């Protein structure tokens, strides 16, 4: 029995609107609201895990395409949906305890579930205007969540994020309008068919440029990254985990990749553009992160760098497909990029959750005022070490495998200098995380931190869950797991514009 796809959007939306009613009953209502919200995210995780390997096209309202809107679950969508569900379940579990220090908790939970609903809808959408609407739902919810604490820094960061994010969304809407004007349809499969049968005229090329800029602002690629170093530190820790772990990946990288590979078709110039953007992000993010003394700001710059890896891998795959037409080399590069996407979602969100637990225990984010917390907070220290080892790329953790695949793919396609830059940036990542470990956990315990205690309850469960996933995700390369989870996603991207024929065929069958 296949799961009807609107469930992924309807469950968080309905729960988001039930929570203010439930939370209006006083203290018991707030506890009930937290339980309901956690139930929603855990059930989404179960549904996402059970929908792997079953691609389907769902026509909403029984209107067949191109008259109606369809929702598509193919390999790439199910991979990203799984990553979103894992991170949102862990972050919601963490925030059950962490958000006690803020007021208006039912509103926070509603906004969180709205953001999850927006991301799910974007990943499953088969129609380009529907993608824009869910992009806006998730973005608006995240602007409100970044400024949730209403302190000085949070409001400034929220305003900056909001202005840049709105400009990005407007670029995307302008691109959608141009695409509709030139092809006459809003359905991604039909747009793709129309573009393949005619060449890219000036309007469509301009629309492609607008899409790259708009989604690049959402993904925080390097010329457009100015909002990320302010927004991620100021947000509450589970929201930073969601923003850095899944939001920039679904709103930015997934949407960009879907539009460029499946709708427009990747050419040599676009492939080079993605490779250059990825390289710039990697190098700039790593250099800027080494000099930071605020823990969360360092993690935010490190996110920019790691998203550069993902875009580099996928861009390299596209470039190889367009230039050499060698599908084996291209699918290796795309496999590295997509695997790195999923890995980064898990370990970066774990790092932000540990920074949240450190902030709740010590009250500060500055590296210089922490130290020697290894004995006082053992579980936080262990999970932070696991996540740092994974992000640096130490075997057998998951980060090592994805970086190795990227280096092998670059060397195999004779891009030696790209491989050299990947290794160099990994060394920079090693430096920054050694700095974190030394200043936070080793060294002397300052006077005012003698009484810190380990975090309790749901925060520990969430961190340990993500740490176990970090350790075990390397097993995703085992052939049987790889073929069910990772390979279908790679096939969707290397198939490129045959997406349209597949979707039309699958929708006729229903």
């Amino acid at each position, binding site marked *: 029995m296949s799961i*009807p796809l*609107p469930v992924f959007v309807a469950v968080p939306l309905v729960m988001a609107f039930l929570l203010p009613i439930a939370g209006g009953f006083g203290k018991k209502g707030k506890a009930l609201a937290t339980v309901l919200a956690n139930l929603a995210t855990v059930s989404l995780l179960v549904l996402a895990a059970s929908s792997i390997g079953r691609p389907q096209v769902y026509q909403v309202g029984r209107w067949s395409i191109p008259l109606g809107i369809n929702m598509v679950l193919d390999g790439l969508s199910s991979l990203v949906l799984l990553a979103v569900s894992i991170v949102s379940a862990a972050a919601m579990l963490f925030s059950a305890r962490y958000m006690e220090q803020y007021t208006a908790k039912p509103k926070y939970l509603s906004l969180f579930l709205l953001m999850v609903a927006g991301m799910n809808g974007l990943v499953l959408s088969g129609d380009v205007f529907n993608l824009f609407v869910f992009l806006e739902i998730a973005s608006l919810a995240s602007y409100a969540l970044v400024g949730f604490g209403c302190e000085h820094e949070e409001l400034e960061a929220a305003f900056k994020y909001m202005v840049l994010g709105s400009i990005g969304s407007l670029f995307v809407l302008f691109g959608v309008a141009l695409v509709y004007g030139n092809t006459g349809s809003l359905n991604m499969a039909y747009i793709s068919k129309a573009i393949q049968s005619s060449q890219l005229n000036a309007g469509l090329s301009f629309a492609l440029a607008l899409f790259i800029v708009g989604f690049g602002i959402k993904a925080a690629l390097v010329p457009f990254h100015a909002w990320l170093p302010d927004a991620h530190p100021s947000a509450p820790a589970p929201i930073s985990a969601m923003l850095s772990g899944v939001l920039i990946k679904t709103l930015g990288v997934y949407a960009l990749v879907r539009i460029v590979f499946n709708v427009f078709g990747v050419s040599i110039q676009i492939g080079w553009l993605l490779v250059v953007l990825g390289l710039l992000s990697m190098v700039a993010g790593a250099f800027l992160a080494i000099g930071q003394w605020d823990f969360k700001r360092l993690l935010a710059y490190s996110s920019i760098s790691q998203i550069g890896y993902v875009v580099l891998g996928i861009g390299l795959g596209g470039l190889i497909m367009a230039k050499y037409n060698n599908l084996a080399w291209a699918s290796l590069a795309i496999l590295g990029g997509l695997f790195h996407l999923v890995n980064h979602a898990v370990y970066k969100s774990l790092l932000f959750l540990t920074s949240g637990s450190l902030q709740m225990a010590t009250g500060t984010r500055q590296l210089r005022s922490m130290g020697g917390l290894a004995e006082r907070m053992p579980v936080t220290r262990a999970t932070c070490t696991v996540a740092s080892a994974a992000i640096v790329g130490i075997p057998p953790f998951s980060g090592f495998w994805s970086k190795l695949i990227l280096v092998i793919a670059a060397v195999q396609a004779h891009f030696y200098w790209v491989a050299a830059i990947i290794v160099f940036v990994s060394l920079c990542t090693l430096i920054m995380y050694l700095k974190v470990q030394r200043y936070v956990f080793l060294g002397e315990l300052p006077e005012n931190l003698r009484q810190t205690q380990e975090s309790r309850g749901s925060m520990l469960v969430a961190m340990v869950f993500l740490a176990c996933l970090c350790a075990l995700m390397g097993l995703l390369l085992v052939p049987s797991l790889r073929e069910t989870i990772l390979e279908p996603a790679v096939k969707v991207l290397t198939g490129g514009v045959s997406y349209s024929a597949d979707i039309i065929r699958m929708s006729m069958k229903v």
Partner: protein
Amino acid sequence: MKGMTVIVKTISSWVKVLIFLFGIYIVIFGHLTPGGGFAGGVILASSYVLLMLAFGREFVEKNLSLGVASKLDCVGALLFAAIALFGMAYGAASFFYNFLQQQYQYGQPLKLASAGTIPLSNIAIGLKVGASLFMVILALSTFRPNGSVEQKE
């Protein structure tokens, strides 16, 4: 926020009913004439904004407080979701299905009772948008121009 003079108060208490009725008309006839849920909801909210300008914020807040408006807002959204989910009773592949029109075909085109579930969705959206815009304007009206803010609990 203080109210205005006696003339404004008298006239606006007569006019607000007309505006509210006009908003309901735009919502219900949304499938026949331009308008629909969103535009009608904005007009419904603006009748309350007229009250707020004429009588002062505290008067309106006693009448329809933020908590009640928030609950109305959620009820509107849940009603919309319920209408969409009822379509699932006709098969798993029919979320948002206009079941009243396609299965039962009651009413004829261009009459009020036609087009299936579209008027019901319009009513739910009108309720939600009206309540939300009212909450937004009520919450933004606590700002005082000299930089301090009215204390609200």
